[in-house]
């Protein structure tokens, strides 16, 4: 079985995997990082989204061996060492953007990528479109959109205009 090494949440990790082992299986089963979820088998729901070398990807649609040498960030790697939540996590909590929490890790990882890749601004329409790869069955997305909108301002160090609902 191939032995692979990679960096996960800033720490070196290595594991023996089968060629057919998926990245999400490596994370959940070998590295016990169970925050990354699996919600489908057709690469559509986004519950499994993690960041690999700076890009958000579906860890259910990537082989573990393809991630050899890569830098992977999962939901567990977002909060700072003292437990302080990432602004996106904070805004999700603030705006009640999660209910059962199952889609949440993937949603947060996607949202961070979305915000980072839109330094010049992020409209509601762009947010909704940008979440195409993430399905939430609980919230109706309304509060997720609000949370991401608010997080954009925090993450880009800008003041959020006060707007009516």
């Amino acid at each position: 079985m191939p032995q692979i090494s990679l960096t996960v949440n800033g720490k070196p990790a290595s594991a023996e995997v089968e060629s057919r082992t998926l990245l999400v299986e490596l994370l959940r089963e070998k590295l016990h990082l169970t925050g990354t979820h699996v919600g489908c088998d057709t690469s559509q729901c986004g519950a499994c989204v993690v960041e690999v070398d700076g890009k958000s990807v579906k860890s259910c649609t990537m082989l573990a061996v393809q991630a050899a040498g890569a830098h992977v960030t999962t939901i567990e790697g977002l909060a700072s060492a003292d437990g302080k939540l990432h602004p996106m996590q904070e805004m999700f909590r603030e705006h009640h953007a999660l209910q059962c929490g199952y889609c949440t890790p993937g949603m947060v990882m996607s949202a961070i990528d979305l915000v980072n890749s839109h330094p010049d601004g992020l409209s509601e329409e762009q947010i909704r479109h940008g979440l195409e790869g993430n399905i939430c069955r609980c919230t109706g997305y309304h509060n997720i959109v609000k949370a991401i909108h608010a997080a954009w301002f925090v993450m880009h160090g800008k003041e959020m205009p006060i707007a009516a609902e």
Partner: protein
Amino acid sequence: MIVDGIGASVKRVEDHRFLSGKGHYTDDMNRPGQTHAVFRRSDSPHARIKSIDIAAASKMAGVVAIFTGADLAAEGVGGVPCGWQIHNKDGSPMAEPMHPVLAIDKVRHVGDPIAMVVAETKQQAKDAAEAINIEFEELGGISDVRAAIAPGAPLVHDDVASNVCFDWHIGDKAATEAAFANAFKIIKLDLTNNRLVPNAMEPRAAISEYDISSGEYTLHTTSQNPHVIRLLMGAFVLHIPEHKLRVVAPDVGGGFGSKIFHYAEEAALTWAAAKVLRPIKWTADRSESFITDAHGRDHVSHAELAVAEDGKFLGLRVETLANMGAYLSTFAPSVPTYLSATLLAGVYTTPAIYAQVKAVFTHTVPVDAYRGAGRPEATFLLERIVDVAARDLGMDRVEIRRKNFIPADAFPYQTPIALQYDSGDYQTTLRECLRMADYDGFEARRKAAAAKGKLRGIGMSTYVEACGIAPSAVAGALGARAGLYEVANIRVHPTGSVTVFTGAHSHGQGHETTFAQLVADQLGIPFNQIEIVHGDTSKVPFGMGTYGSRSLSVGGSAMVKAMDKIILKGRKIAAHLMEASLDDVEFKDGKFTVTGTDKSKAFAEISLTAYVPHNYPIEELEPGLEETAFYDPKNFTYPGGCHICEVEIDPNTGTVAVINFTAVDDVGRVINPMIVEGQVQGGIAQGIGQALLEHAIYDESGQLLSGSMMDYTMPRADDLPNILVGTESTMCTHNPLGAKGVGEVGAIGSPPAVINAVVDALRDYDVRHLDMPATPAKIWGIINAHTLKMAAE
């Protein structure tokens, strides 16, 4: 003053763990020595199993054991039971055919489990499951209810004639016929309520364990009601006494009804754990969920509304064919009957109603309660026929509703079909919703849209639903085989912190927050001093779980009852300590005070005294401060309200965009407005999904054509609008909180509002009705047919 009490939008306690990846869902757990199960399932909707050969598969790498239906039958394992019995018109009980845990002789739907492979890894179990050699004789299946009751249709169960599970009715037939005889007009409508796949984002999963030295079984499972699973599986399927069977439902990633039911996999896993003497884990793939989780809806109805010249409703009669699927799922028979037909009065004073329901077996996945369970079907039917009546009579849609509303001063209101509504104010929720939606400004928006080539429409629904199904005795008389109370155990610790053990279960609803607010409010202690425990039969007294929007109204009321006992005991202790009479001690804001004096004792002083009973009325009072209450409600609760939807159709493609959605609901007492709003929005998303996107489609023979998210349209962020939510509450009159329930209102009220808006948008295309989902292809079909017709004329 408690800041985090009733009415505060407290941020959720559970969020930190979910946001940081520390949730504890079933599949996140692993047990030492764990094996993995995979089920070999039927690809055929209906076939005889001629032989099953496991020889080659058993020898494959990693295989621990393979079990078939015969193995379970040989040990007397029972069938998967149904928890609700309906009686036919003639008083005889419904047909209740055997539902084997693993198929015996025949398979009856695609996904029916035939064998269970237990192996060291999931992949090995899959390899072996594939290698099992099964010989089938295809028998030809049937998926449509109308086809299933036609003469000569293949039988799902040999002993159920014409595939009819039951033929039931409710209401006063003679009075209804009389009302129709006097009608000015009879409005007729055929409707289909589309079949849905619940698709909670967490697929079902379970881990079973058996301790050979104690004889104890433990099952971790994705359930909304672990005690119900323990009862059904222990008592009826596996014959394991309660004290030897522990069922735990940890964090659960959404349920929407689909995780109420006792599923075959749970029983197979639990049984097999004692055979292989190792823990066994099973997690469904999403494609497996599509063909095994109970589906929702799937009703075909014919409705007739008798109206007077002035638009008053005189009578309603309805005939429904309800698809049960291949087997009776746990609460399936209750859905089209007591959870649907009883709501056909809606918010209107219709004096005579008669409904008939035929439940039909087909070669499809079992159908059971899905968010709203029966009430969305009733509401869709009613709110569509009301719109059609307005159209046929040339009346305004708001006017015809107002004219027929049950007036606010008529409560309690006895409907002609069993239910008695305790409170409501439909004029107010309608008025407020019209205002919030700027209904009066619609015409201008319609014109603006028309200028851009878009067809804009507005639609509404005014609805009532029934939650917290109860009392147990009545439910029992109607066929429930379970009680419908709820339990709470409140354990006050010596320093005054509190652990609440509730029989309700949270799988997204935020109970750890809402319940803590409730307790903080009533006991006057800080929110962070309270912990909510749920979901474990070894910790919590026998409770009924969470479904039917019952957790606050029933579970919360049980908490209030238990807290009443705590407070009474606390007053007795305080009276003793302060040398006052019990009547003179009152409890307020976390303090026991002797009325009219400044003598008082803090809650924590009393709890400490209860556990350190040195100066204590030990003759009259036991030490300790822990109380349990079981609360059996006197009636259902009746949330209701008004939903207004505004859509825009692109006539070139048929695409429907929801532009605005406004809901004003009466949910009774609101504990946490933020959570209430979230529940409504989530429900509406599912309602819009049903109305525009979602459809579980079978071909005639029972092959599921929309068997993955590639073909089953899940609502995504860009399919939905912002959802404006308001509440206008009247209090429930018969529970101590005044709570009604909020979990399902969104999914119940919204679908007809959407379709009414779509029909309105198509006003120039001669559309009287269209069934859900209003897909682009369907809308374009309507527009195109009309255009061709006009051209021909």
